[in-house]
């Protein structure tokens, strides 16, 4: 009896083993899983996940194609509606509505939906962006957020103990940090402002506008997909911000000049003392300005306090023939080692709050402002908007042209006129795209 039971048990174990071996057997499905990237620096994470993915799907090749961001967006926009797009869509929050509205996205599997809707895993600020009628349409993966970069040596030289905490301090510090040649030309910017390229220029202006008003220039409207323009509602604050820019680009308080090296490059070669930019700048400055000692700090506060974020969302193309493998790869990419890879290789911060990046932070303290949660510091994200690029580019053109206009110095009426014109331009574009919310 005993012997029979042992044999039966042994047979049961063998069968169970066979069963589990059958369950873990590689999927015979074959093909090419295509992924296009606008941020090619995240490609190593996909490559790292490839061996584990191959164990599940030995007959599927992962095909990774990286493009320049704008080229990527254009290619995706043309390919997906015609059924020729990649299997996995790496969507940024601002282009996400195009693909949701055109019914191009596959339904997210239930286990991933549970993760996305768990506020301990994904911040609801980001979940809201990709949710329509209660359903998320992709897995948020990493985020880019803005912080203030400051040059430690320039600060020491100017006798400044630490980074500015308020917008007012930021302008004052920039006046102390600026350097001029004997003939009066600027040789170092106190802060490098974004002065060109409509869309990017408006984004950076909008950062400060948020601190001054607590709202974005283009806010989500009451109906999903609609957008309202807030400039007119905050006319005085917006005009004051424009006056601050003009005052610091012309006249005695000038802290920046178009002829200087700008942006991350300007900061990396010591031509600027402060810069408001995203996480990727850390790696950029380390590579291009190895002698630059710098720190990062939260964006200075005004009436409100928060920082701009943008996210990358992993969705699956509804026309894909490899939907299950695509979701399995997305699931795999949520594991700690692949998220670590995204962070170390690209500098973009993984969105999952249930993963631990403290080891990385202790080795890379420059990421402090991007990785550490700060009480009262609100992450905000731009309104999903199918006319995003056009609205920000054209509205930005109006604001950026005003930066060059020295006649706006101490001219609040002129500044208000510019802001109202910017409001009209944005409203027209949103109306033409049928997404305007009054």
């Amino acid at each position, binding site marked *: 009896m005993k012997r029979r039971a042992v044999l039966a048990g042994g047979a049961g174990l063998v069968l169970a083993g066979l069963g589990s071996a059958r369950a873990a057997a590689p999927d015979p499905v074959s093909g090419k899983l295509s992924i296009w990237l606008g941020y090619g620096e995240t490609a190593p994470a996909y490559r790292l996940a490839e061996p584990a993915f191959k164990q599940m799907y030995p007959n599927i090749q992962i095909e990774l194609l990286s493009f320049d961001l*704008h080229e990527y967006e*254009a290619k995706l*926009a*043309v390919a997906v*509606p015609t059924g020729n797009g990649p299997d996995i869509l790496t969507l940024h929050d601002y282009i996400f509505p*195009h693909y949701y*509205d*055109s019914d191009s996205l596959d339904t997210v599997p239930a286990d991933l939906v549970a993760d996305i809707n768990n506020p301990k895993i994904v911040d609801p600020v980001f979940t809201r962006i990709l949710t329509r009628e209660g359903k998320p349409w992709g897995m948020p993966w990493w985020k880019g957020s803005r912080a203030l970069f400051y040059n430690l040596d320039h600060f020491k030289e100017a006798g400044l103990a630490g980074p500015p905490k308020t917008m007012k301090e930021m302008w004052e510090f920039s006046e102390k940090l600026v350097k001029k040649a004997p*003939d009066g*030309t600027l040789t170092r910017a106190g802060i490098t402002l*974004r*002065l*060109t*390229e*409509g869309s*990017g220029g408006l984004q950076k202006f909008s950062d400060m506008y948020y601190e001054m008003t607590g709202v974005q220039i283009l806010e989500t409207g009451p109906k999903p997909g609609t957008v309202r323009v807030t400039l007119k509602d905050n006319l005085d604050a917006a005009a004051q911000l424009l006056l601050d820019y003009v005052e610091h680009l012309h006249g005695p308080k000038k802290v920046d*000049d*178009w*002829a*200087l*090296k*700008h*942006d*991350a*490059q*300007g900061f990396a070669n010591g*031509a600027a003392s402060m810069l408001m930019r995203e996480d990727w700048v850390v790696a950029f400055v380390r590579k291009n300005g190895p002698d630059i000692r710098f720190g990062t700090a939260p964006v200075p506060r005004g009436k409100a306090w928060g920082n701009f974020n943008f996210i990358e969302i992993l969705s699956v193309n509804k026309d894909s023939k490899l939907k299950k493998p695509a979701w399995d790869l997305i699931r795999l990419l949520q594991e700690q080692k692949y998220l670590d890879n995204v962070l170390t290789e690209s500098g973009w911060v993984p969105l999952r709050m249930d993963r631990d990046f403290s080891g990385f932070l202790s080795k890379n303290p420059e990421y402090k402002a991007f990785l550490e949660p700060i009480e009262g510091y609100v992450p905000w994200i731009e309104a999903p908007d*199918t*006319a995003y*690029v*056009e609205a920000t*580019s*054209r509205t930005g*053109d109006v604001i*950026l042209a005003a930066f*060059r206009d020295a006649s706006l110095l101490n001219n609040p009426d002129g500044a208000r006129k510019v802001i109202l014109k910017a409001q009209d331009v944005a409203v027209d574009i949103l109306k033409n795209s049928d997404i305007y919310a009054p």
Partner: protein
Amino acid sequence: MSGATQHLAAAPFARRSQLRRSWAQMRRNHIGFVVCALGPILALFVLIRIYPILETIRLSFYNYNITQRRNPFVGLSNYIRLFDDDPFRTALLNTIGFSVLSVIVTLALALTIAILLRSIEHTAATFELLFYIPVVIPWVPAAVIWKWIYDPAYGALNYVLSGFGVARLGWLQEPTLILYAIVLVSVWKLVGYFIVIYGVGLRSIPEELLEAASLDGATAWQKVVHIVLPLMRPIILFTVVTCTIICFNVFAPVYVLTASSQGAPAYDFKVVVGEIYQNGFVFYHMGYAGAQCVVVLLFVMSLLAVQFLAFREK
């Protein structure tokens, strides 16, 4: 040989003579020959030139967005919208300004150099080759080189000018300077091509005419004005038309010179083709971009018609 075998042997000869007859008939029938000879080329021309133009005209009446499934017919509203489009107006004015300056400077310089090179005929070919080098450099690397030359802080141009006490200039940053900076790049790139064209034209002027003028006591200037320019009229017309079309289509150098993602930001100098590109491929408003194309096409065609009238043989 049986009758059937004889018939089989005669068949290839019969076919050959039939072919010969057809060929002779086709040669007689000139239209048929032209159609056969040019047909494939014309078909290709229609496919890659005429069809896209017609399709662009058709799209200009639709609110066609490549990311949308619903692209309704909107009649003339794309054209009406153009009247209120500030960026398009700015781009059109910039392009006209750029084209006028570029065409005048390029062609005047090319003609002057070509005439001067005639006085050193034995080495003219070497100089023509040197002037031609920028023509074969693609626009993008050429623009990147110039972007460095124009760099306000590290550029060669400001460095040279500083030797003469000129303060730092933002060639690509100042709205007042950028037009001239782009014209300079364009002239540098195109002048070699037109020197060669004018060189060919000048060589075809009969030497006896110039010698006779010299014997009559004509000065060099008088020879240029009264002999060279009138005889060069067809070539000048060709160069004016070609140069105008090239300049009106300017995009790559402006795009590269003003790209401002990093480093030295440049002034956003709008040109017509850039606007069309932005509306079509950045904002995805293909219908609206189509309307802009049609307007530009009509504008350039009218300009060319005026040029043909101005340069026509009296």
